């Protein structure tokens, strides 16, 4: 596990951005978070980085390019090296909404945003550090 964890956050919903930023702030990780409002912006950024981030945490439903399409593009461009970065879907949708057979289970993680702030903060902690 790298010391300097870089996180690419892809999210279009202002309320969720507010919640996630608050949670990251409380987890002292806000300075590591780079925010993009859709998959396209994130893709452009990621392709121009010399070093990949540790995590890509993405919503599913977004304008221009959604979460599946982003993952699909990254897979096509062989962006992942030794399982890095870890690709995480963080969404209100159910897991069953992901088109079956599109991706292997090993290529992404899946978390729901949940119905409480503390639950969401715990989820982010688990994603980034492996513990709540």
């Amino acid at each position, binding site marked *: 596990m790298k010391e300097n964890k870089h996180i690419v956050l892809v999210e279009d919903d202002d*309320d969720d951005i507010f919640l996630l930023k608050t949670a990251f702030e409380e987890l002292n990780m806000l300075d590591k978070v780079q925010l993009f409002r859709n998959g396209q912006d994130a893709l452009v950024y990621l392709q121009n980085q010399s070093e990949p981030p540790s995590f890509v945490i993405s919503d599913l439903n977004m304008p221009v390019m959604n979460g599946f399409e982003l993952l699909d593009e990254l897979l096509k461009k062989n962006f992942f090296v030794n399982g890095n970065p870890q690709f995480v879907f963080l969404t209100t949708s159910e897991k069953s909404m992901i088109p079956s057979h599109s991706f292997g289970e090993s290529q992404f993680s899946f978390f729901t945003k949940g*119905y409480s702030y503390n639950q969401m903060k715990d989820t982010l902690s688990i994603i980034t550090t492996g513990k709540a």
Partner: protein
Amino acid sequence: MYILTKLTLSNDLDLMLAHKRSMQVADYGGIGIIQQTSFATAVSEVCRLMLDKESRPCMYLGVLKSKTGRSCVYARITDPRVTSINIQNPNLVYARKLVHGFTVEDDAITLICEMPTTVRLSKELIANGQKLFEELPAVTPYEEAKRLNDQLQEMANRLGESEKKYQVLTDSLPLMMFTVRSDGQMLFANEGFMHFAGTRAFEQLNWLTWLADRQSGISISRILEKMKTGEAFSLEISLKQSLDENRWHLLSMNPIENPLTGQVDWSGFLVNIHAQKLVEETLRDNEELRHIRLALETRQKELDLTVANLNRSNQELAKFAYVASHDLQEPARKMVVFSDMLLSKYHDSLPADGAGILKRIKTGSERMVAVIRDLLDYSKISIDRHIEIEPVQLTQIVQQAREQLEAQIADSGAEVRLDNDLTFMGNKQLLALLFQNLIGNAIKFVEKDIRPEIVISAQQVRLSELKGVNLDPNWAWTSISVTDNGIGFDERFLERIFEMFQRLHSQDQYKGTGIGLAICKRIAEMHRGQLIARSKVSKGSVFTIYLPNIKLSEH
């Protein structure tokens, strides 16, 4: 020569007749009485001579124009044996003297008597003479008897001939012909009738009785009525041909007056028109069938249209519910999250009653989220009628439901036990949703401080068990039951619990949306199965889903 009358001579009595006729012909020729007698005497002398030769001479009486242009009457007696007569016979010589002309040929002797010069031999004279002698009344009883006898004999011959022709003709016709009296007594029947009636003794039949026995379809009284009018008529009637075979016939009746009795007899015929009738009926039936088929097709089209409209409107409704609930989900979730965030982060700085109000907001929002989530589930299963069916493992399904219910199971300490595993045909996602709802209910509806115990078991259903639940016995069935130790319910509400938004408890007792069991029932139906509940108040409930072990073809 113009013949006015002729006579065959066979005996002496005929000689008298020859004399009389000669007198009459001469009289018609305007010849005086003395000359008449001479002519008649001469003729009868010659006839007598001929008769003596035992032959049957023939005598012709008539008028002619002589070579000198004089109008005469003549008598010509023909006989092939004339040559054997002695010309010098005194009687013959005598006769020769009595007439104006006397000619002997090989086969005939002709006697001529001149008429007065005032009489002209006109066409009228000849024609009237022929007519006169034809109608001449009998001169003797013998002649009368002979004439009548001849006529009778000829008529009898002709009648016999005609009758034979009629019988042959009527017998050869493919119809029944008959003559009956008004009272039904049969007077005549042809071969066709006798064949149909099955008897040759038609004289013993009463036609009306016979008809009443044989016909069906119209009443015999109608025929009697028609006969009473005395006018020709025809009717279509059905006649029994054999025990159970009826054949349509056309009955045609014509009245004929019987000259002997003065009564009206009936001459009629019956002709088989069954084939024609059948064709008529078939055509009519066909026509009706075509009308019915057209009506059916029209109705079918209307129905198809209605179904299509209904489907479309249902789909639109389901889509609307899906979109509405999906879009409502996010803002509702935010209300829950932010009120939760406010409560947890600023709990200490909030006044107690303020925190209470905030909790109410949070509770209300949570309920809203629950309703929206269930509606979303329900609309999802309503949009798509086509479901993917594959072999599914009960363990897998229950595990999936368990994951979804992780928090509730943890909070309540519920025990969810799977008695046995089984693989059957179904849709994974839908069945997981079904068990999630059933297990969720079992956890929710328990007495306070009771640990929920849920047992799930599955088995192949025996045919004998199917009676109570009305399942198709041609299919193999799997039943999976979820048994709990909850509060149960009164079976009076069996119907109601599966209806949308129907609840048996208030929100402060047990929270819920009233959608869960409606979803379960719908899922069972989408599998062409059934969901059955058994329960008693405070004794727990058993929910059993029956699923057919078939690959479902859609619709």
